[in-house]
C-alpha cells in the first residue's frame, strides 16, 4: 500500500453539496492513494453517488476543494477531468444502445486521439472478454455483457482513476468472480474507487474502505479495521 505521506491521487477537503435541506455531501475530507482499491460504502441515501459525481465533475460542489495530484480540479468540467484520467462508469448501465459494441468502445478510445484506434478498441474488448461481439448492437447484449461493455469503455479511457458505481449489481455469482479478477488485474496501474453494496465483494477486493452516513465520513480504514469499528457496526453493518 502506498505511503500516506506522498501526495494522494485524489484529495478532497470540506467537500459539500446540499439539495435544499438535504445534506447529500456534508464537509467530506477524503484521500485516495495511487494504486489502491478503495471501496465507498454506506446506507442508501448516504451520499455515495453524489460524492463520486462531485469527483467526476458531473456536479459542482457548493463548498470545499478537490485535487487530482497537486492540481486543483474543483471547477474543472467533467469532460476535462476524463481527459486528465478520471473515468466514471454509470450505476445504471449507460452504453449507447443503438451503436455497435465496437463503436461504444471506439468512442472512448478515440477521445484520447491515438492512431491505432481499431487495435486499441479490440484490446479493451478482449480485456473484459467481449471479443467477437464487436458488430452487435449494444442493446442486443445481455445485461451482464452490457455491464462489461460499460467497464470496457471505462478502461479504454486509460484512466488513472476508475470510479465504479455499483458494478456488480444484477450480476450472477460467476460473473461477480470474473469481475473481481478483472478489477484486481487493474491495480496498481489504475486506481479503483468502488461504490458497492455487496459486502463480500467489498471485503474481498478493497484495500481500504470509507464509510459514509448522512453525507459525512464515519470511518476510513482497512477491511479489518472497518469490521471491528463499533460505530460502523452500529450505523450500518449491524443494521
Amino acid at each position, binding site marked *: 500500500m502506498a505511503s500516506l505521506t506522498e501526495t494522494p491521487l485524489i484529495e478532497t477537503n470540506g467537500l459539500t453539496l446540499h439539495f435544499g435541506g438535504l445534506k447529500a455531501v456534508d464537509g467530506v475530507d477524503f484521500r485516495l492513494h495511487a494504486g489502491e482499491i478503495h471501496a465507498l460504502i454506506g446506507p442508501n441515501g448516504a451520499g455515495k453517488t453524489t460524492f463520486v459525481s462531485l469527483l467526476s465533475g458531473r456536479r459542482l460542489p457548493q463548498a470545499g476543494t478537490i485535487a487530482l495530484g497537486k492540481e486543483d480540479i474543483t471547477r474543472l468540467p467533467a*469532460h476535462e477531468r*476524463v*481527459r486528465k484520467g478520471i473515468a466514471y462508469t454509470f450505476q445504471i448501465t449507460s452504453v449507447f*444502445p443503438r451503436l455497435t459494441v465496437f463503436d461504444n468502445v471506439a*468512442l472512448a478510445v478515440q477521445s484520447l486521439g491515438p492512431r491505432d484506434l481499431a487495435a486499441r478498441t479490440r484490446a479493451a474488448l478482449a480485456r473484459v472478454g467481449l471479443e467477437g461481439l464487436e458488430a452487435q448492437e449494444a442493446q442486443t447484449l445481455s445485461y451482464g455483457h452490457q455491464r462489461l461493455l460499460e467497464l470496457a469503455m471505462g478502461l479504454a479511457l486509460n484512466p488513472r482513476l476508475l470510479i465504479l458505481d455499483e458494478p456488480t449489481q444484477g450480476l450472477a455469482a460467476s460473473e461477480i468472480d470474473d469481475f473481481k479478477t478483472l478489477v484486481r488485474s487493474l491495480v496498481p496501474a489504475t486506481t479503483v474507487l468502488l461504490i458497492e453494496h455487496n459486502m463480500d465483494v467489498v471485503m474481498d477486493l478493497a484495500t481500504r474502505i470509507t464509510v459514509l452516513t448522512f453525507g459525512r465520513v464515519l470511518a476510513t480504514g482497512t477491511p479489518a479495521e472497518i469490521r471491528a469499528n463499533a460505530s460502523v457496526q452500529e450505523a450500518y453493518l449491524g443494521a
Partner: protein
Amino acid sequence: MTGAGLKIWTLHLALIAVLFSAQYWLSPYHATNLARIMVLAVFAMGYNLAFGYTGLLSLGHALLLAAGMYAAGLPAQLWGWSAGPAMIAGIAGGGLIAAVLGLLALRTAGVSFMIVTLMFAQAGYLTLLYFAPVTGGDDGFAVAATSRTLLGFDLSTDAPRFLAALTIFAVGLGVSLALVRSPFGRTMVAIRENEERSRMLGYNPFTVKLAALTISGLYAGAAGAAYAILFGYVGASFATIQYSILPMLYVLMGGAGTTLGPFLGALVMFVLIEAATGITTAHQFIVGAALVALILFAPKGILGTVRERWLRWLP
C-alpha cells in the same frame, strides 16, 4: 477498405453516375429541375449533419442558406465578383453565421434551441427587409450574367449549370459520407444518442455541436451560393421560415441520419408536388400534410425504414 466500405462507396458513386447520365435522357426542363433538387439536397445534407446525426433540431437554417446566397450574390452584384470567388464567399458566409448562431443558440437545447434558432432566423430575414435598398428585400435581384461564368463556362446555360450542380452535390455527398464514417461522425452520433454519457467519455458536447452546426452552415452556404450563381436570383424570401422547414421535411422524408436520405427526400417531395400540381395548387397543404404524416407514421423516413428492415449496412 473493408467489404462494407467498398459496398457503401460503390452505392454512392453509382448514384452520382446515374445523375450524371440524367442530363442525356432527361428533357432540359427536367434536367434543370434536377439541378435545383441537387442544390437543395446539398442544403438538406447540411441540415442532416446537424439534425440527423448530431440531433440538433434547428428551425433557423434559412438564415444560413440566405447567408450563403447573399455572401455570394452581393459581392457579385456590387463588385462584379466572378462565380469562383463568389462561391467561396458564400460557403464561408454560411459557416461563419452558423458558428455565431451556434455560440449563442447552443447554450440552449431541445425546444428552446428550436425557438432560438427560429427567432434568429426571423431577425435575419427582417434585417434583409430592413436593408432592402441593398438586398432587394422580398423582390431580390438578378445576378449579373458576367458573374455567372466559371473557367469560361456560362453557368446560366443548361449543360454547364447541370454539371456545376452535380459537382457541388457530389462533393457534398462525398464529404458527408466520409465525415459520418470518420471518428468525428461517431462522436456526433454519440452526442445525439446521449450527451451526458459522451461527456463522461471526455467529449465537450458544446464544441462537438458547434463544429457540427458550423459544418452544416458550410453546406447551407454552398447551397445558397450555388442557387444564386446557377439560377441567377438572390432574394430575402429564401430567409423565410419556409426555407427552414424545407430541409427538415426533406430529411424527415428521406431518412434522418442517412447519407442519401436528404437527396431522396428532396426528390420525392419535388415529384410529389409536381404530380399534385395537376390536381391542386395547394402546395403548402401537401408540405403540411407530409410533415404531419411523417412525424406520425414514419419518423425514420424512407431510408431509415429501409435500413432498419433490410439494409443494415446503409450509412
